[in-house]
């Protein structure tokens, strides 16, 4: 193969890796928005807490990769449920803006509390032996393969849960009509808590993989990654789970392309400009359905 093709295939692999991490976080934004029409701005910081959980499990407890991942996911899932119960549930009937501001506050709180406990960036120990293989000139690392395969696996499981199980059906029903659903005997509060747990658990998985792939973590890492994942959810059509996955891979691709072609400082500028254009031209996103405004 000629070197150009190899270069772009290599970049495509990088884009897949970044995109799959974005996708795991974007799913949490999208699920919560779908069910509560609320932008959970604290989600990026739950991802950051996931990275720190992973660090704790790996260094303080000395666990290998698989238990670390599971423990991190369980920890962030619990955190998600606690945040929902304490901060968001009392505001469910309040004006929507109150919930958004509370979410911003919760996010800042998580960030600054972590900053108070751990003021300096921390290095993540390598949990996995990093092997590299060569396929026709393209080098593939085992870490990349694990990140991509594990993310895709989690997404498939989630897709199955949402579209094929009673819990998923209840979630979609709540997203469809919140007033009618309790009359059908669906425990709304439980389902909402499950949604938050799943979303936050996926963010924990993303935190683990991100900290393995880019092994320096700090309390403010959740801001930018969180916003990017949020963009991915909007691009795909917020509230739509498959859309969030597609949006995340598009965003990962765009970011890697921008960095490959232009100085890397232009990345945020271009990504946010694209978001602006998309929201103005097609607010419902790629897979979202436009809702008519009723009088």
């Amino acid at each position: 193969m000629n070197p150009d093709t190899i270069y772009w295939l290599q970049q495509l692999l990088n884009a897949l890796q970044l995109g799959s991490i974005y996708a795991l976080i974007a799913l949490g934004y999208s699920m919560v928005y779908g069910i509560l029409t609320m932008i959970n701005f604290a989600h990026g910081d739950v991802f950051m807490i996931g990275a720190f959980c992973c660090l704790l499990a790996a260094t303080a407890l000395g666990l290998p990769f698989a238990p670390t991942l599971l423990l991190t996911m369980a920890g962030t899932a619990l955190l998600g449920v606690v945040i929902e119960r304490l901060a968001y549930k009392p505001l469910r009937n309040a004006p929507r803006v109150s919930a958004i501001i509370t979410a911003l506050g919760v996010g800042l709180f998580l960030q600054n509390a972590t900053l108070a406990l751990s003021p300096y960036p921390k290095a993540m120990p390598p949990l996995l032996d990093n092997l590299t293989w060569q396929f026709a000139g393209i080098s593939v690392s085992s870490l990349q393969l694990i990140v991509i395969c594990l993310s895709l696996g989690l997404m498939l499981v989630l897709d199955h849960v949402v579209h094929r199980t009673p819990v998923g059906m209840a979630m979609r029903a709540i997203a469809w009509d919140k007033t009618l659903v309790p009359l059908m005997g669906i425990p709304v509060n439980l389902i909402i808590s499950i949604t938050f747990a799943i979303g936050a658990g996926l963010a924990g998985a993303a935190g683990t993989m991100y900290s393995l792939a880019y092994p320096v973590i700090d309390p403010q890492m959740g801001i930018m990654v969180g916003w990017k994942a949020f963009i991915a959810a909007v691009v795909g059509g917020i509230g739509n789970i498959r859309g969030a996955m597609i949006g995340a891979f598009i965003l990962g691709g765009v970011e890697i392309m921008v960095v490959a072609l232009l100085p890397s400082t232009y990345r945020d500028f271009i990504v946010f400009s694209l978001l602006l254009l998309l929201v103005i031209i097609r607010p419902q996103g790629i897979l979202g359905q436009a809702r008519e405004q009723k009088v």
Partner: protein
Amino acid sequence: MNTRLWRHWEWLLDRPWLLPALLAGGLVLAFAIPQYQLFNNYIQLILMYIGINIILTVSLNLVNGYMGEFSLAHAGFMAVGAYTSALLTMEVLPVGTYPSLFPVALLAGGAATAVLGLAVALSSFRVRGDYLAIITLAFLMIVKSAIENVDAIGGPRGLPGIPRLTTLPWVFFWTVTLVWLVRNFVYSHYGRGILSIREDEIASDLMSVDTRRVKIFAFMLSSFCAGIAGGLFAHLLQFISPRVFDIVKTTEILIMVYLGGIASIGGSIIGATLYTLLLEVLRPSTMASLLSWLPAPIFDPLYEYFIRHLGVLRMVIMPLALVLVMLYWPRGIMGMREFRGFVPRRDRAAHHALDTPAESPHGTADRH
């Protein structure tokens, strides 16, 4: 409550000369404090921050409170005003010889910001609610990232060496002028349009409110004020960098708006003042000097375990306070109410007829 004292208070509040007298007193103080060093420099600095924050809060309240949209771009507007006016005073205008050119630089910064506000207003024609919040967020990030990429204005390193032109009288002048401007706008014909957009945009369209024109005015006025505040901020701090104007800055202004209460100018003034003071009191050095009268056996452990760590802790306390305010006090201090002095005379009579005689001691409720 002492009824006689109460009656005197009511009488005082009804005097038409009260507000001009207070303003004149404030103006005299604004000149006298730096001239005769009535307070030390630190307190003067806090007073100026309070003024700037009042401008920011009142102008954000115009969009987020009165119009009911959710804008996150305020820090970005501030950045545009700050950079424009700072570049003007550093490179173009000879402020060294003519310090009176400072307001020209501020107005230019405000005008540049208003143009950006127009862009946000135009996008608000197509989308509302959450999506407008996303658009304003994108505006904020684009402004920040654009500044970071222009090396001529310092890029990510920031812009040092701005002349210190912001003085207490200037802050006082701009705060009063801009608050007065917003207040007149809110109680004008257009202001009614803003309130009707918050209640129901489609219905107000049907009632022949020109919602597009009203939105343009509101966004441009709001961003103009933010630009002026940014200019004042830049010439007070003497150093600006894109990091100063990030989403955390917007969150701070949001806290001040919602602490004070939406759709209330008096509330915004209280919210901005209270938040700024609280943030300063929670500094380790300030807290230590405030509590230094405590006897050593109490003070020393308190210092060791609490005050010394406030530098980090206050950034944990503030967002927690925001969440608690939203949970237990969602309307803020003055939500949807107003001080009597800010309500025009013609409205006051109308409200008086609507309200029950026994009202809250601070003024008539101003419900729209």
